[in-house]
């Protein structure tokens, strides 16, 4: 049986479940042997029997479950979409140029101060009508199209306002040109306003052109992240090294990476060593040295050495794919601060239309002569100046830039709401082990009592701890190996007493290892070790006491190194008015010793893992917004309980799920950066909203003529269109400024 492999793009995928649905549907096609779908690349790779399977069958298997297969690539690819976008921009630019050029000529021939300098031909109303008509109906066609579509739904938008406003100006001018006597008969000097409509259309289209260009910049971060992915991988298959597309890499594949190459997927080094630049994923600028057994992350850059690694995560499971998904989700979420803007924008356009009608009526009934002209011009100004777009763009553009900037620095923000809450944080609770400290304690002291040797103490402790995931256990086992105190003893009846220690039977003896409380609870006399315990805990060391058959046998002390960035992070948080608290299961003396090193004064010691959540809630009861920083594994409930849970390190799925913010780079200074980013994004949003609301609240009454009774001041509709065109650009540009702001 022959076998063919094909890789093709799939449109419409957005989540891990799409992958499963697609794979299942493709595998159901008779003759398909294997189907793998990659979410990050949006591609499917299918191995099949070409005699039984046709492109059409594959295509319908994909479309049956609601997606689109681009097997023959007839349908638009991303490049085509990009080209289409460019084409749209070019068409928009042409309409801007034509409408502003024609509008300029009309203005020259029709504007009171200027018209004397213009050639006679431009002063002709009929010529102005001729020049204005293509602007109104060709360049301005998009406004009419959108208005008609919207009216069918009984909705209205900015295009509706522009269409009504410019049509009123154009229609009045056309009547003046065609039937000047009629206008004269109502006491108005026949004077057209073709320039108004044409220039308004030109300027609003110009605004849209710049807005479209600026908006593309707000989603740059996602494009950059997607662009990080390697295209191919050099995989060892059947003893040969072959280059295959990244979508065909499977878990367990052995992959070679040479100097200067991108690491294609996530995995573990099996051979060789190198220095790897992980800055694109973690934001950490120092390259990391990696050797056999170390994990590597897809899309990071290999710098110096050549190595082989085993793929452990591919497709949508890779760190990059998960980061992309998280950032996309965050950019799709809504910040609570947006609610008011949403509410206002849904009523905005109908209200503006009503205000425009009222403006016409008030000027017509109460205004000075010529009333019809004043009424019309002011109505047009009201319709043109109102800009709901600025309100709609104020929050999402800032959120998109803010979350994107975070991702570039290794700060993954779950949603807009988290970003909004983070700026209010007043207290940050740090978990000690693995967060403030390296989390990899080393044994510093071994003390034996009652005839036991240090080797015995280590051997018993190591025998008990061998199955434990506790960081102290790892340190003890390492030290036991180092001091050659092996072999370990077989154990029976192992019991873990959560937060206190462990017990088991070794050679028929009852052995306990753990904290002081475990000893006292089990009636072990520890008086003899009091002096040593006091000294060691005073030095910030963590102790594991060992009791054999109810008698104290020894102590193993270990110390965990404080992270080099911890002190600076705490100091910087203090500078921005945030109090740091440390929470730990260690006893008070050890905890205080560590806290002192990092500059924390408030310490919650001897807190069992299950009590951390309650402690977080107690601090929240003080009425302040509380963030909890932890590793995301032991701390998941506490992270979830806090107003903002910040998980350190690439961690596990648990971390990303439970945390509101995930810091991939394990650098504590990123906690400060995350808070600063949140503050700056919120400031941008508030500036945007202030500007967008303020703009409409101030200028709509001005356009209605509110200043006329006092200063005889009216807003020329052309100036209204300039203000309107700049208002949404200014909001988007302000959001883009966030990119340049420093958060470190």
């Amino acid at each position, binding site marked *: 049986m022959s076998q063919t492999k094909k890789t093709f793009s799939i449109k419409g995928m957005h989540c891990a479940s799409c992958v499963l649905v697609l794979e299942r549907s493709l595998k159901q096609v008779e003759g398909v042997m294997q189907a793998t779908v990659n979410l990050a690349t949006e591609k499917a790779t299918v191995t099949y029997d070409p005699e039984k399977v046709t492109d059409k069958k594959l295509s319908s298997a994909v479309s049956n479950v609601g997606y689109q297969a681009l097997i023959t690539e007839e349908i638009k690819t991303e490049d085509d979409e990009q080209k289409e976008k460019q084409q749209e921009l070019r068409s928009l630019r042409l309409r801007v140029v034509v409408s502003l050029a024609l509008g300029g000529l009309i203005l020259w021939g029709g504007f009171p101060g200027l018209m004397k300098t213009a050639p006679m031909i431009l002063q002709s109303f009929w010529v102005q009508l001729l020049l204005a008509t293509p602007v109104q109906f060709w360049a301005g066609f998009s406004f009419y199209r959108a208005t*008609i*579509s919207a009216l069918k739904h009984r*909705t209205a938008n900015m295009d509706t306002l522009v269409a009504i406003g410019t049509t009123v100006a154009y229609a009045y001018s056309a009547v003046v040109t065609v039937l000047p006597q009629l206008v004269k008969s109502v006491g108005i000097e026949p004077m057209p306003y073709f320039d108004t409509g044409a220039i308004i259309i030109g300027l609003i289209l110009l605004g849209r052109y710049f807005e479209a260009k600026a908006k593309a910049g707000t989603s740059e971060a996602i494009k950059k992240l997607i662009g990080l992915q390697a295209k191919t991988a050099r995989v060892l298959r059947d003893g040969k090294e072959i280059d295959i597309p990244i979508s065909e890499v499977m878990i367990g594949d052995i992959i070679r990476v040479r100097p200067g190459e991108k690491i294609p997927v996530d995995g573990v080094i099996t051979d060789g060593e190198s220095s790897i630049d992980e800055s694109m994923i973690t934001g950490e600028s120092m390259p990391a040295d990696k050797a056999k057994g170390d994990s590597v992350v897809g899309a990071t850059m290999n710098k110096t050495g050549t190595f082989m690694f085993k793929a452990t995560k591919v497709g949508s499971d890779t760190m990059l794919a998960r980061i992309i998904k998280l950032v996309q989700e965050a950019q799709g979420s809504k910040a609570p601060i947006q609610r008011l803007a949403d509410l206002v924008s849904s009523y905005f356009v109908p209200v503006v239309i009503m205000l425009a009608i009222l403006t016409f009526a008030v000027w017509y009934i109460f205004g000075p002569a010529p009333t019809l002209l004043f009424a019309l011009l002011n109505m047009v100004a009201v319709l043109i100046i109102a800009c709901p777009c600025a309100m709609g763009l104020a929050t999402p553009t800032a959120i998109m830039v803010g979350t994107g900037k975070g991702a570039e620095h290794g700060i993954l923000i779950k949603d807009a709401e988290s970003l909004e809450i983070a700026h209010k944080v007043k207290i940050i609770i740090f978990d000690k082990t693995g967060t403030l400290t390296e989390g990899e304690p080393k044994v510093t002291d071994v003390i034996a009592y009652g005839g036991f040797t240090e080797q015995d103490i280590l051997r018993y402790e190591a025998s008990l701890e061998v199955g434990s995931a506790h960081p102290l256990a790892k340190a003890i086992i390492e030290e036991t190996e180092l001091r050659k105190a092996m072999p370990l003893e077989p154990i029976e009846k192992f019991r873990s007493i959560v937060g206190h220690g462990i017990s088991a039977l070794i050679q028929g003896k009852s052995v306990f290892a753990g904290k002081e409380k475990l000893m006292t609870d089990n009636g072990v006399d520890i008086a003899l070790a009091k002096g040593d315990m006091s000294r060691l805990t005073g030095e910030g060391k963590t102790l594991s006491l060992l009791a054999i058959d109810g008698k104290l046998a020894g102590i193993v002390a270990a110390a965990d190194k404080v992270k080099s960035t911890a002190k600076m992070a705490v100091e910087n948080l203090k500078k921005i008015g945030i109090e740091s608290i440390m929470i730990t299961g260690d006893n008070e003396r050890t905890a205080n010793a560590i806290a002192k090193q990092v500059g924390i004064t408030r310490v919650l010691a001897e807190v069992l893992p299950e009590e951390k959540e309650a402690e977080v809630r107690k601090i929240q009861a003080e009425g302040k917004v509380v963030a909890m920083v932890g590793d995301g594994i032991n701390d998941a409930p506490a992270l979830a309980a806090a107003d903002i849970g910040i998980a350190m390190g690439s961690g596990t799925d648990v971390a990303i799920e439970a945390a509101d913010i995930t810091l991939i780079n394990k650098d504590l200074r990123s906690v400060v950066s995350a808070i600063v980013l949140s503050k700056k994004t919120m400031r941008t949003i508030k500036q945007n909203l202030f500007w967008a609301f303020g703009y409409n609240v101030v200028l709509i009454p001005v356009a209605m003529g509110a200043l006329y009774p006092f200063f005889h001041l009216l807003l020329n509709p052309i100036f209204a269109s300039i203000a309107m065109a700049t208002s949404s650009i200014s909001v988007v540009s302000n959001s883009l400024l966030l990119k340049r702001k420093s958060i470190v």
Partner: protein
Amino acid sequence: MSPDKIIVAIASILGVGFTYWFFLGKKEKEVQVSDAVDIIVDGGYTPEAISIAKGKTTKLNFIRRDPTACLEEVVLGDFKIRRQLPLNQKVTIELTPQRSGEFTYSCGMGMYHGKIIVTE
């Protein structure tokens, strides 16, 4: 007051009343959806309000026919989804709502709105 001003006054009151009724007084027709629904994006979303079941995966196939820039994105904020809608292409969004209630979605600028009603 001259007759033309009286006419303008009456016409403007009627105009305001009509605008209010036309834009703000409409009632959306709710469409019950079981597995999938095609939502046409053209001057708004058709159907405008859909009703789907809680906990069940429903596919919303957005097909944009309107080139208006405002409609090129759809944002389902409550479900953390922001998607580009290329013109005349079907974009499928799968939803498995875990909460019941009314959720509005909108275009990227919040001008056009649709509603998803999640029932128990």
